[in-house]
Every structure is written in C-alpha cells, then in structure tokens.
C-alpha cells in the first residue's frame, strides 16, 4: 500500500472517530495531534503542538450530504 493510500485510510478513520471536530494529524506517524471545535481554538492548539515529525494534516469529517459548489469572482 502506498503512503498516500495509508494517509487516506487514517484520515477517513479519524473523520469517523471525531465526527464533529477539526482534526490535526501527523503526516509521518498518523497520530492525532489535536482536535478542536473551531478553527480559532485549533490554530491556537496548533502553535502549542510539539513533537510532530511530519507535516500537520488538517481536516474535518466530509458530510455525506450532497454538495453544490460554484464560485465565480466578481470583477
């Protein structure tokens, strides 16, 4: 299994384990470093995180509901 496939597997597992939080995971060890309800509290926690070996992976659970997205810049 490639590194990317392992990363996807761990991200999906953590999304289901922390369904209503934003999660920060270490990209090397796949350990959850921090969870937070809002981006502000998480940004604060991210600064305090020590011992991370890899790049932080930041994500929230992706909703099963349908998504409609369209954005266009207004000149």
């Amino acid at each position: 299994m490639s590194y990317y496939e392992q990363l996807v597997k761990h991200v999906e597992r953590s999304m289901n384990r922390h369904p209503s939080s934003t999660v920060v995971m270490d990209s090397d060890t796949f350990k959850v470093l921090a969870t937070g309800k809002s981006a502000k509290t998480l940004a604060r926690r991210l600064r305090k995180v020590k011992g991370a070996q890899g790049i932080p992976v930041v994500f929230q659970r992706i909703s099963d509901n349908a998504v409609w997205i369209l954005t266009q810049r207004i000149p």
Partner: protein
Amino acid sequence: MTLTYPFLAGKPTILVSVECLLSGKTYIIPMLIDTGCDETSFPAHCAATFGHNNNDRRVKKTWCSGVGGRSRSYLHSVQVSLLHPGLARHSIAWTSHLPKAAFIENLHCTFGLLGMDIINEWKSLLLKKTRRGRRIVIRL
C-alpha cells in the same frame, strides 16, 4: 506523468499539500476537485490555520458569487502541491504556479476547492470507476 488518487469519503476529494508563502508553514488539507469553481478557494476561517488575519489591511479583498450568493473573499499567498499517490514515502509530485488562493466568507464546507485556475495547469482530469473503487486520474 499520470497521478491516480482514490476518492476520499466518497467524493472527488484529494489530500494536497498547501504551503503558506509568507511563513513557509505547510499543511496537508483535503480539497474537492471542483470544475464549477473559477479560483482555488478555502473557507475564510482556514486563514487562521496558516496564521493569517483576514482583517489585516494588507490583505487584498475581492467579491465572488456562487450558489450561496455574493460573498467577501480574501486573497492569501498560499501554494498548492499534489502528493505523489504511488510512492511508499511522503513526496511532492507537482506544484502549481499560482501563488495565491481565495479564502471565502460564506463558504461553509469542511474542505478546500481545487478550482479551474489549477485544473487548467493539468493536461487532463478523468474521474473513473475501477474494480477497486472510484479514482481521480490527473495527467500533468
């Protein structure tokens, strides 16, 4: 070069590396491949994760529109890179030339949007169904 990614959480979403060009901080973030999106975008609150402040007077502000209506967007200096999907270790396969992305106020989703500004840098994009599940195939 051809990069093949599995869908994430049942959507054409890939994990990408996003680097803040001001601080050098890098994060890996899920991004939806959105051909209906002109500019690569993130929800406005994500700017705080990179240590950016949307209210700083040096931040360029524009307007954008979409399904949710008209919304304020803040331009921040970040660069998107694709992770290599086939190697046994963490590696960057490709980096976009774009030095900025929009952070949109009324974008209430839990991922970033890989828009047409980045998709146009690729040779082709294909969504296909395989025996192992749905895949995103990007030719560079």
